[in-house]
């Protein structure tokens, strides 16, 4: 009977390359285990248990990653749905590093008088009695750790998928936990919930666009597989189905560029960055951007490479608009987190210059566009984590104080906080001796090599305005009169370790970038 009803379905057991997939599987396994732990452990032990689980799993995952990388394992995994190649390795490693650093900031409790940055009871109505009770009982949501791990795992799959359906599933797997995490701030909960809703609605829209694009490309090529789409595009000289291809390309681009935060799909960024708890903002600011750029590169360099003459000019225009809007938007901000949000938009624009360059074939030993972008993201990530870590430190009686005015004269209250923040700002601005400079110079080189010299000139002029924007905060900190009522919180190592790692790495990648640059260079080629 069943064979008549289901003639075509032969269930084959999936083949999984356990060792090669271990970095992803471990993260997901730890996330599932974390949910179980929350269900069975008494409250008092949960925080510690979750933290142990998170850091152990990420460390183990990183260990497997390094082992596989050294063994030069590469190719398709999990029945062709995941591609293990150079960019996958480099970006997985970056994601694990930045994820770990962000989770450390998640763990900070000393700063807030023993409570984390997350709401005591996210489900209770803000201002209600339940909320007050939960606060008084010192409840806390240890689910943030499994949620974070799910997001991290989703991102890892997202940028490595060789198949558009897997990519879509991964997109949802990493997006949903982030929507939830954004709404869990302890302070200013209404703002946080508004941010979460806004992020969710716009994110759902963009997922819709993505899915529609996938459908169009499927109709065009008859496959979800990136390599098959590449073949179809290559053999598509005089086909009448070009309309399907272009619609699919456009919708797919919208879905991906939304996550990257490229104008005109950027409008969620400032609100979400401001509303979300600062540790989550730090996590999103680098990890989401990294994963989204990774997936963008994979789709457009691997599957739609043959159409580059069509998407390159379009992306070039978007890059210009993104830089301009990001920088001009940032100039008028009065809130540090919004300022960093607009700055992240501007950085998406700088990244797009290298995406446009699309240099993929270079003589041995020289970097591709992908290697420039990966280095840029690493440089940007360390400064981002450090900067958001420092943002959590500047406080007033009610909690974190994010207005720029409250940062005035910080150099006299705490020279170290002001000095480190200046370092991160200088790195964002791309001043030499910081990682940001080397990154910027690498992406500009990639853009010019791809024949987009004019874009480099525009980007250079944009960076000049951007310098002013970062300088503004430095001037406020060093030349302003100390603000009344704000102080620098007494944080534990959970905040300071990521900040110091960020600072050391920013200098290290700025002065002797060779090792990381070599890694990125050798990892710069996508496999089809």
């Amino acid at each position, binding site marked *: 009977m069943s064979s008549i009803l289901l003639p075509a379905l032969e269930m084959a057991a999936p083949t999984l390359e356990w060792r090669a997939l271990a970095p992803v599987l471990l993260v997901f396994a730890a996330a599932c285990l974390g949910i179980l732990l929350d269900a069975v452990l008494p409250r008092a032990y949960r925080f510690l248990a979750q933290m142990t689980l998170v850091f152990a799993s990420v460390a183990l995952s990183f260990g497997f990653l390094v082992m596989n990388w050294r063994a030069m394992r590469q190719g398709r995994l999990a029945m062709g749905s995941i591609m293990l190649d150079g960019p996958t390795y480099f970006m997985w490693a970056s994601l694990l590093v930045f994820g770990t650093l962000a989770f450390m900031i998640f763990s900070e409790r000393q700063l807030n008088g023993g409570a984390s940055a997350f709401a005591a009871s996210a489900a209770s109505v803000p201002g209600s009695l339940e909320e007050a009770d939960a606060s008084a009982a010192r409840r806390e949501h240890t689910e943030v750790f499994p949620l974070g791990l799910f997001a991290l795992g989703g991102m890892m799959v997202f940028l490595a998928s060789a198949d558009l359906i897997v990519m879509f599933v991964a997109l949802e797997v990493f997006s949903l936990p982030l929507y939830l995490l954004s709404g869990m701030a302890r302070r200013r909960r209404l703002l946080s919930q508004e941010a979460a809703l806004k992020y969710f609605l716009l994110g759902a829209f963009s997922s819709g666009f993505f899915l529609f694009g996938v459908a169009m490309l499927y109709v065009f090529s008859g496959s979800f597989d990136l390599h098959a789409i590449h073949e179809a595009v290559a053999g598509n000289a005089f086909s009448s189905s070009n309309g399907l291809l272009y619609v699919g390309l456009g919708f797919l681009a919208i879905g991906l560029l939304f996550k990257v935060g490229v104008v005109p799909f950027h409008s969620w960024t400032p609100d979400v960055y401001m509303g979300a708890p600062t540790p989550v903002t730090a996590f999103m600011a680098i990890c989401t951007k990294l994963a989204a750029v990774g997936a963008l590169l994979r789709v457009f360099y691997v599957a739609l490479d043959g159409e580059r003459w069509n998407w390159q000019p379009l992306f070039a225009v978007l890059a210009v608009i993104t830089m301009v809007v990001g920088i001009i938007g940032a100039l008028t901000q009065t809130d540090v987190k919004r300022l960093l949000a607009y700055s992240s938009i501007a950085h998406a624009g700088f990244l797009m210059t290298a995406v446009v360059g699309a240099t993929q074939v270079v*003589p041995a*030993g*020289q*970097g591709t566009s992908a*290697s420039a972008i990966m280095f840029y993201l690493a440089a940007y990530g360390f400064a981002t984590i450090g900067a958001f870590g420092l943002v959590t430190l500047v406080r007033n009686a009610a909690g974190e104080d994010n207005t720029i005015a409250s940062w005035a004269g910080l150099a006299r209250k705490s020279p170290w906080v002001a000095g480190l923040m200046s370092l991160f700002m*200088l790195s964002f601005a791309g*001043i*030499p*001796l910081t990682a940001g*400079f*080397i990154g*910027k*110079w*690498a992406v*500009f*080189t990639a853009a*010019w*090599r791809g024949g987009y*010299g004019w874009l*480099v*000139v525009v980007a*250079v*002029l944009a*960076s*000049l305005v951007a*310098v*002013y924007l970062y*300088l503004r905060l430095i*001037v406020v900190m*060093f*030349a302003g009169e100390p603000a009344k009522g704000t102080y620098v919180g007494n944080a534990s190592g959970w905040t300071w370790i990521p900040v110091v790692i960020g600072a050391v790495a920013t200098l290290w990648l700025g002065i*002797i*970038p*060779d090792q990381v*640059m*070599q890694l*990125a*260079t050798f990892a710069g080629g996508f496999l089809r």
Partner: protein
Amino acid sequence: MTFPWLTFLGLLPLVGGLLLLLPMGKGAARTLGLVFSIATLAVAAGVTVLHVTGADLAVQVPWIRAFGAWWALDVDGMGLAMVLMTAILTPLVLLAEWEPPANRWGAQAFFALVLILEGLSLFVFMANDVLLFYLFFEATLIPTYFLIVGFGGARRGYAAVKFLLFSLAGGLIMLASVVGVYVVGASQGAPSYLLQDLASVRFDGDLGRWLMLGFLIAFIVKAPMVPLHTWLPDAAENSTPGTATLLVGVLDKIGTFGMIKFCLGLFPEASLWITPFMVWFAVVSIIWGALGAIGSRNLMRLVSYTSVSHFGFMVLGIYAFTTTSMTGSIFYMLNHGFSTAAMFLVVGYLAKRTGSYDIEAYGGVQKVAPVAAGVLLVSGLATLSLPGLAPFVSEFMVIAGTWSRYPIVTAVSLLGVVLAAVYILRMYQRTMTGPVTDHTAAHFTGRDLTGLEKAIMVPIIGVLLFLGFVPQPAVQLVEPTAQATLAYVGTTDPAPVVKGAK
């Protein structure tokens, strides 16, 4: 492998500066800073001896392999002259600023920033790799910014941001060219930033000209030429005299240094193309700077405007493309470091007593404080290129060399020499001579220069006098650079034309 002297030379003050960021007593910090700066001077002197005896000092280690960037350091005559100037001026600046202004950051921070700035500047003058040069070129801005913000005058915030934005505007335009140089090099099979590798690359046509302009604009902002000079008077007015000395005396030299080493060294064809424009541009700077100095009411502004005028002469000498004029220019770069240092430091001494840089605040000082007045006069005469003082020799070489190629331009530029006498002597007359004002009497009576202040001026004026009478060692040091550059550009000196000769 021999000892990497040049790396050591640059790292020494950097390490000293970073050490000074650690918490320590004020006295210990100042002593330590001075020790590091003097040790740097000793190493610089040692490097000079090695260079003169013909030792190969070049250092070349891969730095960023993926982009063909090298940790490549070397000195030629011009680089060494700049290195020596920096190394001599730094300890003097530290001594002159032994007590930084009150209500600002402490002496320890000042010493640390000056040493960091010294280290970065030394690397700028020694870098033999375009990217490495660019890296340090931009990095010098950070300590300078903090030196202005942390210790400057009333409008220090404004001046510091203006300085930084002007410099970065030039610097970022140059970044586009730096990227372009690599891309063009890679397309011709030399994916490298090393100067000797790039010598084989042809930067022809329009692209070469645009790339050259990117470098040139950065250098024009740096060695401030009209109309991109407006940041300098503001920055100098709102700095301490020590900072202004380093800013104008050392950092601005990177502009003319870069024109010779990079604009001419990488883009000979494009540089010849821009020459007619640059020559007139230089003349405008000479005259405009002199007029600006005449119109200044503030002593610091006056000194910085005189520098705008002097940089005009240096640029004129460079773009005249004769051995004499270019040697004169490089020699001028050295002399100008000392003559401006003398001016800024003396002005600083005066202001330390009265608290004001306004010319109006002085009058008849020479009757009460004759030594201060005398030192100001000597420094001023050096600035207006009086024979017997070093700037005269270099200015004369520039004018003589340029005359053989551009007589009309040179004639116009001579106006600058006359105006120099006006601005210096008028300033001297209004501040030092005439009846002793109450203000002067109150601040200067019994407060002539102290022993330390005199001791600081001795080496500076000593160098100016020595090179004024015996310029030969310095000229011989820098002449090979001029000859090599001109040979690379492919110009020859015009044959002397002597009327009536048979």
